[in-house]
């Protein structure tokens, strides 16, 4: 990233981008905070809050429920995903790392690719670590990773935000905006800010220790089954996880034919692998829980995708009503 500018505020950038595309950003929605269409009086200071939004922006790229095609009684007609320009504003480093993984995983998926091509990614460095975050341990934050966003904003208390251009597409998106060149020490300021953010994350020794035990095959089936007894199969973890990609399909009757829908599925559901014959490769909750954690953290998956599929956002810790989130489970594994 070579081009750096100074912004008068986050609004300056968001308003400019809103001239060409819908802008989705973290918003206060009554009592909740979520990604939503940016309103004129929407407060973007939320992007600076040191806590994670409960849900990532994943549904804007991989829809929770969408139509794949319609069968009209004679032919199958594709129903393409919307491709209107969209700006995803205020993405954290961990969520951007997750999107980079989704790009790789869903390469060739026409519905994901259509939405993704239409989306401009605007990242915001985290000023401080969040409660459950361990992005540093997963090489996913707190600073936005190079190449993962089109534009990167770096904020700091009592200073104007800095804008780093992350891609040619990002440069083109701000081409019409009158921007002040950043002070000469901008890159250094960012490095100092990120150092402070990383320091605020604190030590999480159970993460590395838990992963090491997992890789060494030191977690017994009995422990997984004991933990699995508590799993409610509610799909909370897989819903909030920014890298969970599993889906199922179903047909809904329509006219003389049917519409094929796909929607998010969860590997924690009892029927996820159950076959029509009754054969079930993962018949116990412990096996399914083990699968989830191995898929997020295990060495074979790291080898396959070049990184862990966990980005350290910590959302599953808050989402799980059975205290089986990543800290609870890795903590238990590390302590056993």
């Amino acid at each position, binding site marked *: 990233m070579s081009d750096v500018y100074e912004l008068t505020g986050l609004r300056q950038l968001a308003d400019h981008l809103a001239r060409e595309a819908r802008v989705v950003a973290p918003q206060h929605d009554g009592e909740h905070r979520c990604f939503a269409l940016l309103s004129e009086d929407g407060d973007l200071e939320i992007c600076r809050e040191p806590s994670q939004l409960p849900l990532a922006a994943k549904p804007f790229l991989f829809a929770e429920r969408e139509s*794949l*095609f319609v*069968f009209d*009684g*004679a*032919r*199958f*007609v*594709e129903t393409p995903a919307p491709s209107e320009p969209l700006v995803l504003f205020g993405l954290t480093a961990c969520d951007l790392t997750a999107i980079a993984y989704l790009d790789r*995983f*869903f390469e*060739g*998926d*026409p*519905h994901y*690719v259509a939405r993704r091509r239409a989306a401009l990614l605007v990242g915001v460095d985290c000023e401080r670590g969040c409660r459950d975050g361990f992005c540093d341990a997963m090489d996913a934050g707190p600073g936005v990773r190079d190449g993962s966003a089109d534009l990167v904003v770096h904020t700091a208390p009592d200073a104007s935000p800095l804008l780093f251009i992350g891609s040619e597409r990002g440069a083109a998106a701000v081409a019409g905006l009158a921007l002040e060149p950043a002070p000469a020490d901008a890159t250094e300021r960012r490095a100092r800010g990120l150092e402070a953010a990383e320091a605020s994350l604190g030590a999480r020794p159970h993460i590395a220790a838990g992963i090491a035990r997992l890789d060494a095959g030191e977690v017994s*089936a009995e422990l997984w*089954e004991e933990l699995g007894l508590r799993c409610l199969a509610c799909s909370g973890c897989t819903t909030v996880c920014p890298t969970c*990609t*599993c*889906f*199922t*399909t*179903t*047909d809904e*009757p329509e006219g003389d*034919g*049917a519409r*094929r829908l*796909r929607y998010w*599925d969860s*590997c924690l559901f009892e029927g*996820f*692998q*159950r*076959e*029509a*014959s*009754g*054969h*079930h*490769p*993962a*018949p*116990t909750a*412990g*096996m399914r829980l*083990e*699968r989830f954690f*191995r*898929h997020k953290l*295990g060495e*074979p*998956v790291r*080898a*396959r995708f070049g990184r862990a599929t966990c980005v350290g956002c910590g959302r599953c810790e808050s989402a799980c009503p059975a205290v089986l989130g990543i800290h609870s489970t890795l903590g238990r594994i590390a302590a056993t």
Partner: protein
Amino acid sequence: MKQTTPSAVRIVAAYDDGQDARHFELAPLSGESIASAVEPGQFFMLSVPGAGEAAFTYAAPPDARGHVQALVRRVGALTSRLFELEPGAVLGLRGPFGRGWPLAELRAQRVLVIAGGCGLAPLCSAVDHLAARGAGALAVIYGARNPDSQVLGVERGRWSGRFPLLETYDHPDDPDQIRGTPIVRLDEACQALGGAPEAALVCGPELMMTRVAAALRDRGLGAGRIWLSLERRMHCGDGRCGHCYLGPSYVCQDGPTYRLDEFQRLQAESPPRATELVSVHHC
């Protein structure tokens, strides 16, 4: 881009082919195209409009007219709906998907094929291929629940006399029929091959396959010379939906055919618990 919308095919012909099993011939509708290059052991995703989509094997790859042969067993909602359809009904087809049998490696070898139940279907075109080789012996052991549940009658009739085809039954109808799993005829098959097999292709219920593989290993065949074909629930066929995982592998992409040593390495990540044995139903 991956093909997520199927090509339209129609049922050209269908006939009963074993208990609760039917043989379907499918042909692309005019203006629709389906891939013609299919390896034995690959599979396709079949859409039954209104009922959904599931994975089935090619009993025979598409012929010059693009006609596909499939053997389907009625086990659930989708196949029950399919069995109600008449010739002319329109279905959707995507494929081929997955990795087929390693036939290029078996060119002149003594090959033993072992199938259980409708596990004969993914092996059917491989058997045709192996039987047509100029060199290399072939023997097939086919186990079924009982004579009525044997599938692919036309194909087995075609094979008769061309190579040893040894049959076994869980529940024989008469005393001449051999009772037991394919393992009970393993030694006989080795003799018929003219020596210990140099490779084995196995397909059937997972428990049957692991037991057959163990029996082959006991007779000295290496884990690198035994191949299995797995069945898993699938909702995409091309590595996206996540359902067919086997450790870090997706059966739809890396399988459905696995070499025994690969399968064992992948399975070691999450070994079957004792409870799994309870849930296994024979095909």
